[in-house]
């Protein structure tokens, strides 16, 4: 049984390689396409130098379209940032914020995207004001619902209410699967151990997360176990992570159009030890989701102090897992090695 849900990659996943120039845009797109992850999401200003301050060059945009066509891919989302703190000491005025979002809508359309991703820190009124322009350009603006937020948080409810009131279907949500973190990620634990957290404390924090102990109690207990600096920091991660329930997406499916397949680590046997993708895929299928789950590898920043991340291998493993969960019969595999 195959699924209406499609696979994609956010090129954010390859950031460690692209930052260093080890992978070109073509490498990123080809790699994703070979894995059958044909939906391509980008952070516009990561992929296109100049955006937004001095604009993306036509040649670069032409190259993008050439590569998308060559590898039979589909542009999915341009993730924009809206730097409303551009001016030191004063926030960007409302109308300028709206104009900035319109600019990103146009850029998304120029790249052939269906969606642009907004951060939750942007006021819903700004997005509502930009919605008519998005409708004209055939773009939907999706706010990313990301830990520590969740679908029952008042700030997200406020967005949902503003979206309903606007009457526009150009406004929606992009849930980041990190909000469903059900176990403390092993790569986080290992990094905290390298930073000097005593083994007993690290074990305790992992267990406490599993037991859903409230963060403030965990922080106190770690202090009483003699924890300092990095041990406290390890305990404090619990303030910002919570194992919310994937089924809480169901009330919002009509506005959920794209998914960030956040992951911190894929093991050799294709398991993400901390995010419940089996349950996530079931819920998305139950909700009739037909969009893309785009790989979003974020383990890089947790291991880079000890080893060079291998983002392509990590994405490959997640795509193998996703293909399995989606009932695909073919196992995604790479044909072209990346020159190291």
């Amino acid at each position: 049984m195959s699924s209406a849900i499609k696979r994609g990659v956010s090129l954010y996943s390859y950031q460690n390689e692209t930052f260093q120039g080890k992978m070109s845009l073509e490498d990123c797109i080809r790699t994703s396409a070979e894995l059958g992850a044909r939906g391509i999401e980008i952070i516009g200003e990561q992929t296109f130098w100049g955006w937004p301050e001095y604009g993306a060059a036509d040649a670069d945009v032409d190259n993008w379209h050439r590569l998308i066509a060559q590898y039979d891919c589909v542009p999915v989302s341009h993730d924009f940032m809206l730097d409303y703190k551009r001016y030191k000491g004063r926030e960007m005025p409302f109308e300028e914020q709206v104009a900035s979002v319109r600019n990103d809508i146009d850029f998304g359309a120029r790249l052939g995207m269906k969606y642009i991703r907004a951060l939750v820190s942007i006021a819903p009124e700004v997005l509502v004001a930009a919605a008519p322009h998005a409708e004209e350009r055939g773009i939907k603006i999706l706010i990313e619902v990301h830990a520590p937020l969740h679908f029952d948080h008042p700030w997200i409810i406020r967005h949902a209410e503003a979206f309903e009131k606007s009457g526009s279907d150009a406004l929606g949500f992009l849930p980041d699967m990190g909000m469903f973190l059900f176990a403390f990620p092993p790569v986080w634990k290992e990094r905290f151990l390298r930073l000097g957290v005593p083994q007993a404390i690290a074990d305790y924090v992992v267990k406490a997360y599993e037991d859903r102990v409230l963060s403030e109690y965990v922080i106190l207990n770690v202090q009483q176990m003699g924890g300092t600096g990095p041990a406290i920091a390890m305990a404090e991660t619990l303030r910002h992570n919570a194992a919310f329930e994937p089924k809480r997406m169901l009330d919002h499916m009509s506005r959920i159009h794209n998914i960030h397949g956040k992951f911190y680590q894929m093991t050799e046997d294709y398991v993400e030890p901390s995010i419940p993708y089996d349950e996530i895929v079931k819920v998305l299928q139950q909700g009739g989701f037909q969009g893309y789950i785009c790989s979003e590898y974020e383990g890089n920043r947790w291991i880079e102090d000890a080893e060079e991340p291998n983002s392509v291998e990590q994405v490959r493993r997640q795509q193998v897992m996703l293909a399995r969960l989606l009932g695909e019969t073919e196992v995604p595999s790479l044909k072209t090695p990346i020159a190291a």
Partner: protein
Amino acid sequence: MMDNKMIVEGSLQSVEGGFSFLGRLPYYRGLGLSMIEDIQVTVDGTVQPREAVRFAVRGRTYTLDEMETVYDNRWNFGEKATIIVLNGGLTPGAHAITFAVRYRVSYLPFVPTTKDTKELALAA
């Protein structure tokens, strides 16, 4: 993230009136220059004055004060900017360089500073 890749290895050079090296923003995206609040360079334990620092990218050079109101240029993702310090110059040989950047990120409720320290050699 990318903290340990901020200073580009082997990039230390002498320039007229000082020295330079190549630096990258430790971030998964770039930033408009007005959002770079400070760049602090430390050489062998000595902090260099803010006034001595210049930031150069794609042929344009700025003081740190000037950067604060530059709205038409960026430090792009992974882009190697030239960080110039007009301190009168360094002696040839190895120097411990610390490169710290404070940048204003709209969605963060605080202003992070990230730094990298590397030993770089200046050719005689």
